[in-house]
């Protein structure tokens, strides 16, 4: 699948605005039938060590996952990654929680089906400590997102964004910031590959 690419070079002052998009959810290219573990390590570039140390809660389509090695991904699905959460319900939601029985009705059951292996874009949401640890990396390497959401962000936070977005490069060519509107991006694919470099990055 081919996507147009938008590269933004911004001051890190407005990084928090982009982080909200990761909470809402973005897409990562993958293949149907992959295990959620493989998706995270291979397609998201998150290490095995980080998963075992920091990712304590994982939901697929709203259901908590306990077996990350035997649960597979499907087209149209969404995975959410979170650290360990407070509260009894936070504890229930953890991977392999001792309180799993209390949310059993929504738990994702392991599924060993290998699936079609077809190319898909799988949804991903990052929360709390995972967001603060890894959010920046995702923007550096690029995420798939509806172009409409980028223009909405520019429109809603125009003052902050216009004064802190330093460069806009679309498909390798420098552009005016004003081009990031619904009209200005008419010719681009509906889903774009968005990269954001924040100014204090090397």
């Amino acid at each position, binding site marked *: 699948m081919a996507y147009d690419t938008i590269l933004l070079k911004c001051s890190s002052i407005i990084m*928090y605005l982009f*982080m909200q998009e990761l909470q809402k959810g973005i897409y990562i290219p993958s293949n149907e039938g992959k295990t959620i573990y493989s998706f995270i390590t291979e397609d998201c570039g998150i290490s095995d060590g980080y998963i075992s140390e920091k990712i304590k809660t994982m939901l697929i389509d709203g259901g908590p996952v306990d077996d990350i090695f035997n649960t597979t991904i499907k087209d149209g699905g969404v995975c959410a990654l979170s650290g360990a959460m407070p*509260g009894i319900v936070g504890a229930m939601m953890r991977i392999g929680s001792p309180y799993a*029985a*209390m949310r059993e009705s*929504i738990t994702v059951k392991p599924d060993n089906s290998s699936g079609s292996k077809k190319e898909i874009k799988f949804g991903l949401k990052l929360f709390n400590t995972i967001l603060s640890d890894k959010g920046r990396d995702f923007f550096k390497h690029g995420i798939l997102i509806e172009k409409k959401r980028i223009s909405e962000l520019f429109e809603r936070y125009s003052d902050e964004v216009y004064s802190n977005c330093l460069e806009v490069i679309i498909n390798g060519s420098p552009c005016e910031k004003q081009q990031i509107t619904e009209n200005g991006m008419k010719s681009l694919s509906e889903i774009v590959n968005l990269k954001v470099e924040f100014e204090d990055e090397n």
Partner: protein
Amino acid sequence: MDKILRINMSEKGGPAVKEEKNSKYAGMGGRALTTAIIADEVHPMANPLGEENKLVIAPGLLSGSAAAMSGRISIGCKSPLTGGIKEANAGGQAAQVLARLGYAAIVLEGKVPDGELYKVLINKDGVKIEKANEYKMLPNYDLIEKIKASHGDKVACISIGPAGEMKLAAASIACTDMEFRPTRHAGRGGVGAVMGTKGIKVIILDDAGLENRQPADPEKFKEANKKFVEGLRTHAVTGSGLPAYGTNVLVNLINEAGGFPTNNFTGGRFANASKISGETIADLETKRGANPTHGCHRGCVIRCSGTYNDKNGKFLSKQPEYETVWAHGANCGIDDPDIIATLDFLDDNYGLDTIDMGAAIGIAMEAGLLKFGDGQGAINLIKEVGKGTPLGRIIGSGAAVTAKVLGVEHAPVVKGQAMPAYDPRAIQGIGVTYATSTQGADHTAGYCITANVLKVGGFVDPLKSEGQVDLSRNLQIATAAIDSTGMCLFIAFAILDQPETFQAMIDMLNAFYGLKMTADDVAALGKKILTMERDFNKKAGFTALDDRLPRYFYTDKLPPHNGVFTVTDKELDSVFNW
């Protein structure tokens, strides 16, 4: 902490103060003590707003000592909201100061003659009660400013706002925090209304000239406290998640799980959750020069609280908790953090429970009084409560009353108390606790996550789907016990995963009192408390039929999972079988 202070407001000639040695309830603190006194001394059929009811204010067993996290205060009575026994607890400075003053409890008794209002001052020299009619209908923040002018900001206050004076069933009791703001509330069950019937506007606690309470074995205590703190600091939840984002970090996760009640419990997901999430609000607080990492009392090492500034960088409220962000946010369709923080401030100022207020406004929205998402309308409704208009008094009486008056079928309440921020159709296990808790729908009743550490009621196999009833039982037992220590419930996360941290907490208690308690003793204490509470409620007229969720939770499907509550009545009735 070997004294009980009794203040009888019915005495001819004005309030009568009696100080007695705590021999009858020795060894009890916090919820254990409030429950024991209410069960022992209040007639179960007493009218909660009448002369026979009592209000018991008790610090925990370790409050006033150097023990970390020991700043919770328990407030108990017969609840005007549920009609059953009630314990509501709060953070802030009051528990530590009251314990240093040597009191295991303050018991407010009788009923003040209509129209009179008093303030109580307690310091090392004794107890003074004075008429305080000049404080009538003052909101909490205004009251505390006046106290600051007369007593300075080193004292701690326990107060009620206009809602308590009007004896509204959702009235809270405020405790001041480290900055001497009335931000920490014993919110649930209308405890503020009972304080209102006693005619006491504020209790001013001054521990000037007093030291921390000293342990029986200082060395062992110091060692145990050190291990306990280390455990909290190294745990992912208490060491990083909570300090960074506060309890509101749960918004995204519970929303994603489809258990985030939206628009008066008609949906499990709020489309704009990311706008009000802990992550977004913490970023906003930092940007506006507020502090997202802040303790609510001295000795807190988790620091899950914070401050929230308005657009001009001026203090607007404390950092709203998860339950508040949900109640005034998703449950009312409101996605503006500034509106939510304003509602949080108004709740604190008038002295109202944010959960019941958010639920009542959600019901008013379903009834068509205002639209879901109408933030200014929600602010106006809470202001009506502060003014004491007829509509305001209805809203201030909580979700159950509001639903009845406005003719709304969907009242998310158990025993008259509004459900917190987890929909039991998505998360069935929490529904077991909501249904069976002695307190009415209450997430903190089964909060303490030590079930398999304590192994009370048998070990539950995490790999089996059965067991949510057993888990709820164990959680409620453990929570009742921890509520008696004065420890913040958030220690639960560390003691779940780290048995050595749990042991350190028991070692602290043993070193402080010279005891040899084991985990079994902790479980026995929890069972004893729950047994007293169940017995009281039974005598007050509660039956098994009160241990049920509203019928619509069994029939109306909740999107996105489209589930209903499926735990059977038989299972619910087995929760307290021991």
